[in-house]
């Protein structure tokens, strides 16, 4: 059997599309058999809700009278600096940006209780933020100072643009040292006191389409509670990693770059997030529909937590020193059950990505499709896969010669 995106959309239009979440499809396909399930099911919906640092938003805030050129000057939203190195009233706010006077890790471990991600959450919640700017002034943009309240509805455009989201699989972080460490993988207790993981596992978008047969530039998705699009592979997209016989990456692999209209999103699905001793980040809700174009794609979506394996990495030494190596391989069934064994020791596990919310997102996307409110798109170009020749490079530092 084979079906096209057009055929699926026709069924969505008629209210006849058969949709299951990536969790539901496991039992449905086991019961019906792969062949029959592939004939009957049109779409499998995925979801993930976790901290994703390479996120941010760009804005066009409209021109003042007289005009001001924010570009080249300094602009802050609620004291958080934005990037203004573009045209007059466009700027980009990064999720991890912080106010200049945030103490960061000066009193270790820092709290990192506010930053760009929180500004995004507040804007999406409809709140006013304080824009403060200084500029150098030109003949055409004479104004040099600006202070105003601003909300999302005042802006011309507000676009969430995330350069790396939805990692296909992720490390399990542990701490072999004898002191507490504070990482982007959470607070890690000394001597293997806990193990933190961060993936929705069997519900995660890219783990349900491991070779990127359906996802690419132009894929319409659930993003932050609204509609968004995949705009290509994310940064650090690395398809050429060790995989199981079924094609599932056994470590961090593919990533997505996504964008969407911030004005359509919800603070429920875009959350400011603080990692003690590390920094601020944005927790993003993403759901990707997988069109069941053939049996092989259906088989990929049947992936179960116990079939998704990942590597345990020491964040006290090997991660910060960038020394490759794994302390062992575990699967997401074990991680979700609450304990794994590392170096002969039983270690309790915690998640950073919410499986409960991932399931909710996959469910919402399923409802949208069933209700005829969400149609699938044919990507213009699929994400680069294992045949792309992509190699993920570390930085090769080259000394800069000093001339006197």
């Amino acid at each position, binding site marked *: 059997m084979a079906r096209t995106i057009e055929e699926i959309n026709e069924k969505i239009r008629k209210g006849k599309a058969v949709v299951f979440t990536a969790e539901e499809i496991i039992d449905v396909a086991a019961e019906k058999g792969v062949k029959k399930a592939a004939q009957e099911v049109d779409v499998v919906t995925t979801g993930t*809700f*976790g*901290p994703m640092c390479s996120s941010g938003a760009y804005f066009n805030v409209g021109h003042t009278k007289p005009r001001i050129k924010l570009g080249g000057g300094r602009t802050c939203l609620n004291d958080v600096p934005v990037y203004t190195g573009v045209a007059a009233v466009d700027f980009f706010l990064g999720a991890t940006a912080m106010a200049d006077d945030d103490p960061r890790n000066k009193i270790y*471990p820092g*709290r990192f*209780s506010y930053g760009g991600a929180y500004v995004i959450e507040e804007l999406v919640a409809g709140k006013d933020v304080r824009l403060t700017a200084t500029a150098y002034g030109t003949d055409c943009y004479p104004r040099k100072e600006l202070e105003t309240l601003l909300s999302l509805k005042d802006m011309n455009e507000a676009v969430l643009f995330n350069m790396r989201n939805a990692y296909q699989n992720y490390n399990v972080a542990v701490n072999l040292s004898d002191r507490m460490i*504070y990482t982007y993988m*959470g*607070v890690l*207790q000394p001597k293997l*006191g*806990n*193990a*933190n993981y961060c993936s929705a596992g069997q519900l995660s978008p890219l783990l349900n389409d491991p070779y990127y047969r359906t996802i690419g530039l132009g894929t319409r998705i659930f993003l932050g509670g609204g509609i968004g699009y995949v705009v290509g592979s994310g940064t650090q997209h690395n398809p050429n990693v060790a995989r199981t016989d079924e094609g599932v990456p056994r470590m961090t692999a593919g990533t997505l770059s996504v964008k969407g209209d911030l004005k359509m999103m919800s603070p429920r699905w875009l*959350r400011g*997030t*603080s*990692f*003690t*001793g590390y920094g601020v*980040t944005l*927790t993003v809700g993403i759901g990707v529909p997988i069109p069941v174009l053939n049996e092989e794609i259906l088989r990929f979506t049947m992936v179960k937590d116990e079939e998704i394996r990942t590597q345990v990495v020491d964040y006290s030494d090997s991660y910060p020193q960038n020394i490759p190596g794994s302390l062992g391989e575990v699967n997401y069934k074990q991680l*979700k*059950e*609450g304990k794994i064994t590392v170096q002969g020791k039983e270690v*309790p*596990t*915690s*998640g*950073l*990505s*919410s*499986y*409960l*919310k991932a*399931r909710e997102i996959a469910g919402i996307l399923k409802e949208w499709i069933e209700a005829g409110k969400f149609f699938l798109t044919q990507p213009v170009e699929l994400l680069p896969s294992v045949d792309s020749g992509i190699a993920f490079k570390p930085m090769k530092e080259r000394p800069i010669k000093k001339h006197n």
Partner: protein
Amino acid sequence: MQKKRVVFSYPSHLVDQPVISKLVKDYDLTVNILRARITPKEEGRLVLEITGKRSGLEAGFQYLSEIGVETQPLAQDVKWYEDRCTHCTACISVCPTQALDVERDKMEVSFNRDKCIACEICIPVCPYQAMEILF
């Protein structure tokens, strides 16, 4: 036997009095001090678990009230903001009493305040400020 988790607030003039010792000796209560703090103004705050006979507990609390120690259940000082919680489970592996626990089928986090000992380990661990302890 009854068990209570309570917070004592001492006025400054009682900080040098052997109040706990009296609870143990005169009222036959078992006292487990979970946390203790004296503020710069010399007011004292104690979190404890008290076990004893109903009559001993009643008389002990009467004594505390007479000398001016304010008591309140610990639960009032610990807050779990369910709307802020994303059920990520970051807190689950560090909570020593399973006051924060997860229903594994749904991966849904819950907070049982009766089990909480206000150790505050969850506070820096929660990325969403869902836990608050006013102590």
